[in-house]
């Protein structure tokens, strides 16, 4: 299924360095560790107020059975500007495929965040709970848009 990522409201500000000069939590797409984490249906995304991974991690899928707390790393992060288009592309490699084991696990949301600064970037909603069977070794594959995780444009 195709799902458009929903960026958290404060993402643009955190890309620009945060709300205050003293704020150290910001998104550095060129050097920080970007991760994709799975969250259960107990998580209710609050686009306007959710800002930190640590603030929502209580609803992350429990560690074990094929899932590791914190999620999987999106390597090869690559911010790039396309000349002549006023467009910035924030790209990354797809996270490692999740394979359930043991008792398996369930999730609904994928949250993309900056694991270095703890800052949330965006989330994707599967629409309903996905139950991953460990006995069957079910897998979950997240494929990023070839156009990037998100883009910026200047008119």
């Amino acid at each position: 299924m195709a799902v458009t990522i929903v960026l958290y409201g404060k993402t643009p500000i955190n890309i620009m360095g945060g709300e205050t000069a003293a704020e150290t939590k910001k998104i550095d797409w060129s050097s920080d560790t970007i991760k994709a984490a799975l969250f259960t249906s107990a998580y209710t995304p609050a686009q306007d107020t959710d800002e930190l991974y640590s603030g929502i991690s209580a609803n992350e899928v429990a560690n074990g059975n094929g899932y590791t707390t914190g999620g999987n790393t999106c390597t090869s992060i690559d911010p790039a500007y396309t000349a002549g288009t006023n467009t910035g592309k924030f790209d990354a490699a797809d996270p490692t495929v999740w394979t359930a084991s043991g008792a398996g696990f369930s999730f609904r949301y994928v949250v993309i965040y900056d694991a270095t600064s703890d800052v949330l970037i965006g989330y994707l909603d599967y629409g309903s709970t996905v139950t991953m069977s460990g006995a069957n070794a079910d897998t979950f594959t997240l494929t990023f848009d070839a156009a990037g995780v998100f883009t910026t444009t200047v008119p």
Partner: protein
Amino acid sequence: MAIAEVQKAHFNGTGASGKVVVTFTAPTSGNTLVVLITTESAGTDTFVTPAGWNAGRVQNEAALYWRVSNGTETSTDFTWSAGSVTVHAWGIELSGTHASAPFDSSGYNTFTTNTTATLTTDATAAVADEYAVGQVGMNGANGGSETASNSYTLLTTGNTRDIAASRTYSGNQGGAVTTDIGWLTTRVGRWIIGSFKPAIATPTNYTMDHIKANITFTGKSHTLDPHISGPVDLQYIAGPGFVHTLREHRTPY
């Protein structure tokens, strides 16, 4: 598909024959065949693994063998090297088992002067929905009143010198498989237990194709208010000898 017992039968073997013959009625190729053997007495008997069979666990007083059936195992001799030993065996055909590596774990121990034995595997069950079967062998008639705990079912009753029980688990066991088997008369004996994995269903591959979002940076309209850098002086002559200066400060426009 849950693991199920397709057929099961009890067999006896004596030291005089040096073997116990385990038979299956037209086993289905791909099913798992399990053979449990316990002796009546303590000793140093060495069981011999028949060709084509796998030794899940072999001790001096008990053995557990398995194989994925090719459909032809209608009769197999299980032998041992020592002399006069009486053994009891169970042959069980299972459906719904893992196609190539059904055996998971096992356990074994001996006991003295007991009316109960706790059978348990050495390791945690590897996957959910496993099947477990165990057997207790003893040195004399057990007196009846055979029981098996933890929802295990006795394969049969009344064999007097051995008791076997099995269970197909549902869901994740979360630990070793275990059962307490009891009987009436205090006996010396030994037990063996093994667990088997279910067939693997075809994995479901969930996918999510991410679609990017865009952040638009929008320029805002701003007012440019230039200030004249200094005051402008205006002069007029009021009369002879008097010069007045009017200093005007321009306000921004």
